[in-house]
């Protein structure tokens, strides 16, 4: 009867993708308060950030998949949030990525997003997945291209506006 949420831990060469935990709060609140969150609904108050971090955990319960806190493998220092984001109104599950300021420019999002795609295709057995990336978010557009994604169409969100859909290479196509 006790409630259990399973959030698998995945390790890559430099990173650990793991469940969010209380010690991640400060870094996540700082990120959500900064202009860095402007392409993903921010900036946000500390209270909103707290709820959002809670929701990252809760989506695993509701969907059976979700997003991880990406941590540096040796120190466990939180670097960003990457994984499968799928709120209720989304057209389909997407690989989402966010990197905190001190971790930018090191390929963290790329390494974690590749691990996420691998999880979606090999562990979950999915055949396809997308990422929703605002056109103005040039760094993320560049990452989507680097991962071999193709811009497909535009999802119109009532709150966030136009969200272009980038389709990743399918499970059968192999890695780019």
């Amino acid at each position: 009867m006790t409630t259990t949420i399973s959030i698998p831990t995945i390790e890559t060469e430099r990173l650990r993708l793991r469940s969010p935990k209380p010690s991640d709060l400060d870094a996540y609140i700082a990120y959500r308060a900064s202009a860095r969150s402007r392409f993903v609904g921010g900036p946000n108050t500390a209270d909103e950030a707290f709820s959002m971090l809670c929701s990252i955990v809760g989506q695993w319960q509701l969907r059976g998949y979700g997003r991880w806190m990406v941590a540096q493998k040796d120190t466990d220092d939180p670097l960003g949030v990457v994984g499968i984001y799928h709120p209720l109104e989304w057209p389909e599950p997407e690989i989402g990525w966010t990197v905190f300021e001190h971790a930018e420019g090191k390929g963290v999002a790329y390494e974690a997003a590749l691990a996420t795609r691998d999880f979606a295709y090999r562990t979950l057995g999915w055949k396809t997945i997308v990422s929703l990336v605002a056109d103005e978010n040039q760094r993320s557009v560049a990452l989507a291209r680097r991962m071999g994604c193709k811009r497909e169409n535009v999802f119109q969100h009532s709150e966030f506006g136009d969200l272009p859909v980038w389709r990743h290479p399918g499970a059968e196509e192999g890695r780019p």
Partner: protein
Amino acid sequence: MNAHLADTPVLETERLLLRAPQAGDYPAWRDFLCSARGNFVGGGSDVDVGRAWRAFSAITGHWTLRGFGMFVFSDRGSGQPLGACGPWYPEDWPEREIGWSVWHPSSEGNGYAQEAARAVLSHVFSDLGWATAVSYIDAANIRSQNLARRLGAALDRTASRPDPDDLVFRHRPGAATP
């Protein structure tokens, strides 16, 4: 290695089972939050389901980030979820709260919230060892104010509160006799 929402306590009362939320509770929660019954907890009949969905996932994640959280109470016989009650401490709350909601109109008036809240108060004071807790209740929410009083809570006029329209009821160990 899995990170579990592990060791979440389960409380039992005469008629109710209190446990951390489960995915199957979501439809009943959604119908509650997106109705006028949800007015006092950030919901309402004009609230879209996306918000109910995010709020539900946040209730679950609160357990992970705080180590305690809102229980869903269900009918011990049928397993049907009837409402939520438990400690709640989001980032902008001045202190830890005990909150409650009864989801369906047909469940109201049976004393379920009171039964659940007595179990929760006993849990936070005895098991978690808290010295105090509050309930933030909208000044227009007379039903909940009455329940707070029946639970032995006293109006605290000086405590800070998240919303100026809230009343603060303060719970103390032993005030809610089982």
